[in-house]
């Protein structure tokens, strides 16, 4: 399992367990140096989230059912965004992760327009943090320049670290070696992450559960993020 190409990284989010607390959103922002935009910009719908929470309401008051969907990038196996990129600044790597090459992006935002899940963010201005936060940026993740598109990478830098560690210890990558920040931080363990190709992995089993579904499956994008539907 050491060689790349054998893995197919995926995520399963249990909606029964999710409380909508937003820990995954916060962990993601800190982990990936996602810019914090000011109130004015936020008012204009320019907040940047690699991990977001979509809230749906069903039914009329007082019988309303509120569901929280943590929403990372779905890392489609058949991604509509990579198809349209004119400069190959986004592509699906051989482990199934849809990545962005920030220094190559020309900022045409075609991928944003093409993504049916609207998961991509754009750096409308140069990213900016409160003074005190500048020293706490994650050195493993590049800070994006103004004018490029960015999105969830499944914390691909953590995969690199995990692989290096495994190589140093001369062993194969084990389940749990590589977890994105959202999955690791979730207080209710709602977000499982692992190798969908590994028949023994938790995500593999959960993805086959009768409760499992994927967002807008009918589009044929083959997302690698599964949800486990809410049951009473």
């Amino acid at each position, binding site marked *: 399992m050491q060689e790349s190409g054998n893995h197919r990284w995926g995520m399963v989010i249990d909606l029964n367990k999710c409380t909508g607390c937003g820990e995954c959103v916060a962990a993601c922002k800190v982990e990936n140096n996602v810019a914090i935009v000011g109130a004015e*910009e936020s008012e*204009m*719908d*320019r*907040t940047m989230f690699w991990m977001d929470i*979509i*809230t*749906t309401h069903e039914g009329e008051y007082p019988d309303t059912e509120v569901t929280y969907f943590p*929403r990372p990038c779905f890392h489609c196996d058949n991604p*509509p965004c990579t*198809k*349209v*990129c*004119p*400069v*190959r*600044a986004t592509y699906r790597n051989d482990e199934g992760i849809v990545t962005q090459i920030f220094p*190559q*992006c*020309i*900022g*045409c*935002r*075609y991928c*944003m*327009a*093409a993504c*049916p*899940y*609207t998961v991509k*963010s*754009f*750096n*409308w*201005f*140069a990213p900016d943090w409160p003074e005190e936060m500048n020293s706490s940026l994650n050195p493993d993740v590049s800070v994006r*320049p*103004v*004018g*490029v*598109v960015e999105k969830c990478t499944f914390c691909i830098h953590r995969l690199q670290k995990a692989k290096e560690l495994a190589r140093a210890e001369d062993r194969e990558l084990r389940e749990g070696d590589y977890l994105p920040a959202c999955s690791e931080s979730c207080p209710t363990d709602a977000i499982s992450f692992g190798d969908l190709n590994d028949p023994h992995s938790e995500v593999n089993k959960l993805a086959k559960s009768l409760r499992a579904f994927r*967002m*807008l499956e009918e*589009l044929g994008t083959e997302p690698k993020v599964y949800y486990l539907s809410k049951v009473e």
Partner: protein
Amino acid sequence: MDKSTMENSNEDLDLFRSIEYTGNGFYWTVGFLIFVIAFGLYGYFHQVLYGLGVTGMAQPISWGFYIVNFVFFIGISHAGTLISAILRLSQAEWRRPITRMAEIITAIVLAIGGLHPILDLGQPGRMWNLVTNGRLQSPLLWDVTSITAYFAASTVYLYLPMIPDIAILRDRGVKPKWLYQFLSWNWQDTPEQKRVLERAINILMIMVIPIAVSVHTVISYIFAMTIQPGWHSTIFGPYFVAGAIFSGIAALMIAMIAFRKIFHLERYLKLIHFQYLSTLLLIMSIIWFYFTFSEYLTTFYGNEPDEMRVFNYKFIGDFAPYFWLMVFCNFAVPVIILSFKKTKTIPGILVVSFSVLIGMWLERLIIVVPSLANPRLEYPVGIYIPTITEWGLFAAGVAIFILGFLMFAKYFPLISIWEIREGRESSIKEVAHRLQSYMPDTYEEDELERALK
């Protein structure tokens, strides 16, 4: 120069007026236009310095005025070369005073439109990546390819029929002499030169038609190739091409009316030319309506929830005022005004042309924004309010068009002099001959010979 050509060159003096006479109005207009362009450029400078945040674009409406205007300007550029080529191809004799103006609109507006995607780039400095890392699988690359091809073809197609006119200017000693000397390519009006020129024009005119059609088709593909509601439609190609020709004719007639008024060219640009063109405009209006109707009826009848959200946003939601204004401008106004002889006059045609331009601009807006404003997942519906930067660059785009047109008129005849003369000298005979050949029981001489063999 012999005596007869001397007389001829005096005959069309009106056509030289824009070149040989410069009034104060010209300088004032140029000054004003440069001011508008400078304002737009200042906005762009600001944008490059701080980022695209200075525009009104945000999430999820990540495309705005720049893309709308890109589609709009490229649409207008279709007037020209395509119409001119079709009129030449169909041997429409009334084309003679029109083709040059149509072609110049194409060349200028295409350059403006083609630059718009660059305005929209977050990292314009990395544009070279399109060459070094270009992916031909991306519809954006198809655009780059076909727009450059169209620009090359249409500038050559503009230039070639200008050579005899430039030679006329050279022979009249118009300043700057070196310019006309250089651009006339030693044209001496010999039969051999004429034959070569005619052949070149004929080849180009056929070549340019498929290129022109491809350009607007692939622009529609930018949208149609995605799976977004409201964009993913098979009729987008022809729909965009029809809309492009539609708005192009309107722009052409506005330019013609303005030019005719300023330089008193009523002798050349007659009511009949406007009436023919406006009949074409009326037909395009009906075709536009037919496409629009088919497009939205299919959506409505299919009743898919995601598609219907975009549909309702346009028909009864936030975009309803724009949508219905578009229908009014693109369909009601042209059909009402152009259907009656009484209103099919120059002022009437001018009103219709402006109305169509506004309507077609709205159509581009209505295609780009609502689909982005209504994402499939349950995000809040987006709003988009363009900023002064975007308005400024839009105004600058229009100003560059007018300035380009003016500068062209300052140095070159906007009405093809030699083609007018050719028409005067030989086209009546030619057309009579042609009509004769349509009649039953008359044969062309060579046809008769062939039949006898």
